[in-house]
């Protein structure tokens, strides 16, 4: 327990002193503001440019009524960016340690490798949770201020779906980090798996089972799609998450560092 605590403390200190936490938090606040801001400003922009557009023969563009739903639609359009920023920032969590040899001192002191992995995983989960909650809450508060969140159905459910997609991605990142030796190989493996999920999702029957379905959770907001449709994908996501972590531990224990 003392070993685990010590390494978690080290990982946590790293978040602060290397400014990782600060950067991801700034990105989440900015993205949180951007969604309602874009929803609010688009009609204003169109209005301002209406004359110019008419002169060029572009007319009759109808900007629909902007509601809380528009704001949330913007949110889900941008949210994969937050996941990508997170993955890029944490793709070096293990590989920089492999390359610099910083884990050698730790491991040769009798530190269990499983505990190293668990420490990193826990800290990444906490950072993801903080970043996502801040991002979601910022959009929620602004949307509530300008419009009314109660117009949107299943608001929290949709938010949770993207959140667990982030958790799943961290599992994938951990597995990739136990396999790859460089930052780039970790990104390729993680990105590759997500890309394969997207490609398989072309087949509608298969799409129902893909963890990437979570990123499309915006469809439940207007009530046209039932939340019950997500059961299968959640089950697959949970199972593959556990497999990623178990696999990562097994590989990491025999990893040449």
């Amino acid at each position: 327990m003392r070993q685990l605590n010590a390494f978690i403390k080290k990982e946590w200190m790293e978040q602060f002193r290397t400014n990782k936490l600060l950067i991801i938090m700034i990105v989440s606040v900015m993205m949180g503001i951007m969604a309602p801001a874009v929803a609010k400003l688009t009609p204003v922009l169109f209005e301002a440019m209406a004359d110019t557009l008419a002169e060029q023969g572009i007319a009759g563009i109808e900007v629909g009524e902007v509601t809380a739903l528009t704001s949330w639609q913007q949110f889900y359009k941008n949210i994969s960016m937050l996941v990508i920023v997170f993955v890029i920032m944490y793709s070096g969590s293990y590989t920089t340690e492999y390359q610099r040899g910083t884990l050698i001192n730790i491991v040769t002191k009798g530190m269990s490798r499983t505990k190293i992995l668990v420490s990193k995983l826990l800290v990444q989960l906490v950072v993801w949770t903080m970043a996502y909650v801040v991002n979601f809450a910022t959009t929620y508060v602004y949307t509530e201020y300008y419009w009314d969140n109660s117009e949107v159905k299943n608001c929290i459910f949709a938010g949770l779906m993207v959140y667990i997609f982030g958790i799943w991605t961290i599992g994938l990142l951990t597995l990739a980090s136990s396999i790859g030796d460089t930052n780039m190989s970790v990104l390729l493996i993680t990105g590759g798996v997500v890309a394969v999920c997207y490609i398989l999702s072309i087949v509608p029957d298969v799409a129902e089972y893909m963890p990437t379905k979570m990123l499309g959770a915006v469809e439940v907001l207007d009530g046209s799609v039932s939340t019950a449709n997500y059961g299968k994908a959640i089950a697959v996501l949970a199972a593959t998450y556990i497999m990623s972590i178990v696999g990562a531990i097994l590989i990491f224990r025999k990893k040449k560092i």
Partner: protein
Amino acid sequence: MDNILSIKGISKSFGGKKVLDDLTFEVPRNSVYGFVGKNGAGKTTTMKLILGLYQPDKGEIYVNGKKVSFGQNETNKYIGYLPDVPEFYGYMKPTEYLKLCAEITDIPKNEVDSRIKEILTLVGLDKDNKRIKGFSRGMKQRLGIAQALLSKPALLICDEPTSALDPMGRKEILDILKSASKETTVIFSTHILTDVERICDNVGILHEGKLAWQGTMEQVGAISSNKSFQVEFDSNEDMKKAIEAIKSQNINISNLEMKDSNLENLFMEVIGHETA
């Protein structure tokens, strides 16, 4: 004899190239063991095998009577390890780093602070509590020794601890190792032979994957002093006279060379330090 380390018939290949071939040797407790070999002779590989970082193709290793198994760290609690180029988390201060080490090796809580202070004083870093990022190579090497000695290991393994340092830094590191050897067994690898002569009492020479020679420094002295002497004169004139005298007796001198450490002496003199 009581051995802290026994290596029995270890072989290890990398991609078809045999690095270690049936290597066998033992290191007695409370000795300073110089592990000598050319670059690429397999010194680092041997050390990583002892630490369980590599899996041997064949053979067994025992540390403090316990078998080393790859990937697991059971025997590492007896070992302090100083890698050739020790790397740390640059955003930490030495005390913070050593505290992390202390918690990993489970040093009793009430001893941690005093132990860290003691070890930092030993390696001469007690006044440098800034982030490790700004440390020089020599300072990192000293911090490396500090982290290796922190848990008072029975066996200290140093991989070329002096190779990357200037003569002054080398002397300091050797002095620290020498003083550490009062409490622990030290194995250190090097290709700098004068370092071995300075602090070791046992030597093993690794060549082509095997231990080509092993013995005590006394034995080294006995073998090499058969025919050669080192004579120092007060001046060059005296030296020339002596050589003339030898020649006049028809004695053949097969080899005459300047003393190795001349430059080192000069360097120490110039920067105002006495040689040991």
